[in-house]
């Protein structure tokens, strides 16, 4: 599960959850891959990314160093910023661990890179 994916996952489908975002991360195994940098694509994705949630996720993983605390002005033309955004969104992957609902503490396991967001019948 890349941090890009974590950025768009919520536990809102659970009963009694109002926002369910961002999900906490407790990672047991994290991989850093090299992924082809596409500045135009990253530029477009940044518009959809919740940057504070990305920072929180990086912090949960102990990978916070180097991540800019906010989206800079004119980021589309700032290759250094785009490269950092690319690294955090696309190159850091949680392989095993848990995602945690911020309101109920309910854990959603991540196994072999795949988060299991299935809820039981009594939870929806």
């Amino acid at each position, binding site marked *: *599960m*890349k941090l*890009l*994916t974590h*950025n*768009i*996952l*919520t*536990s*809102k*489908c659970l009963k009694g959850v109002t*926002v*369910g*975002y961002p999900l906490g991360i407790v990672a047991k195994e994290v991989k850093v891959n090299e*992924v*082809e940098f*596409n500045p*135009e*694509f990253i530029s*477009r*994705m940044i518009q*959809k990314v*919740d940057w504070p949630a990305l920072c929180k996720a990086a912090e949960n993983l102990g990978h916070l160093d180097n991540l800019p605390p906010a989206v800079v002005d004119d980021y589309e033309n700032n290759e250094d910023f785009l490269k950092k955004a690319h690294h955090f969104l*696309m190159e850091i992957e949680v392989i095993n661990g848990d995602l945690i609902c911020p309101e109920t503490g309910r854990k959603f396991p991540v196994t*072999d*890179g*795949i*988060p*299991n*967001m*299935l*809820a039981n019948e009594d939870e929806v």
Partner: protein
Amino acid sequence: MMDKIETPDLSHISSSDYENVYEPAEDSFLMLDALESEIPYIKAIKPTICLEIGSGSGIVLTGLAKCLGSGCAYFSVDINSHAAQVTRKTASRNCVSLEVVNCDLVGPFLSRIQNEIDVLVFNPPYVPTDESEIDPKSPIALSWAGGLRGRKVMDRLFPLIPQIMSPNGTFYLLIVKENDEDDIFKVMKSYKWHGSVIMERKAGREYLKVLKFKHVQM
């Protein structure tokens, strides 16, 4: 030249995998052919997010992602955790980067991807079945058992389309004749989404069709 969808390599998937994961069949290949015919259209809308619901083996999303390339983010969801794992392996085997989530439809994404999905692909459980036929513990039955008129699962997705699709987004849905395309068109029209049949094929006893939906400004 670059508008061809190559059939992904599935040699890593074993027969025991296929006990729990839908093995690509005529419907999967029809969807691949339909999407191939749509590649120029899809490229023209410059998609940023593509999502496939019920990716199964991963054959369709992997084929699409390989063709469209790295300018887009690809997400797969599957309610079947075996399928989710196989999809991930299929992507990796074919050197394609896509993200997989094990969940029911788009529930966990809903509040964060409002009007963000540019291409949505769904080959749903479409076989009309009796409620009693479906063993909820059988992952493979989840891939084909569609309840009354085969509409049980896809009917849950239709009301979400206006919420999740981007203004120029396109939704591709595979159905069989029994699912009643006229009724589906009527339901989607009530959400201001216009549908058409873009490809069809008779495969054994099944009359398969791929429907394409776009938002219509009124």
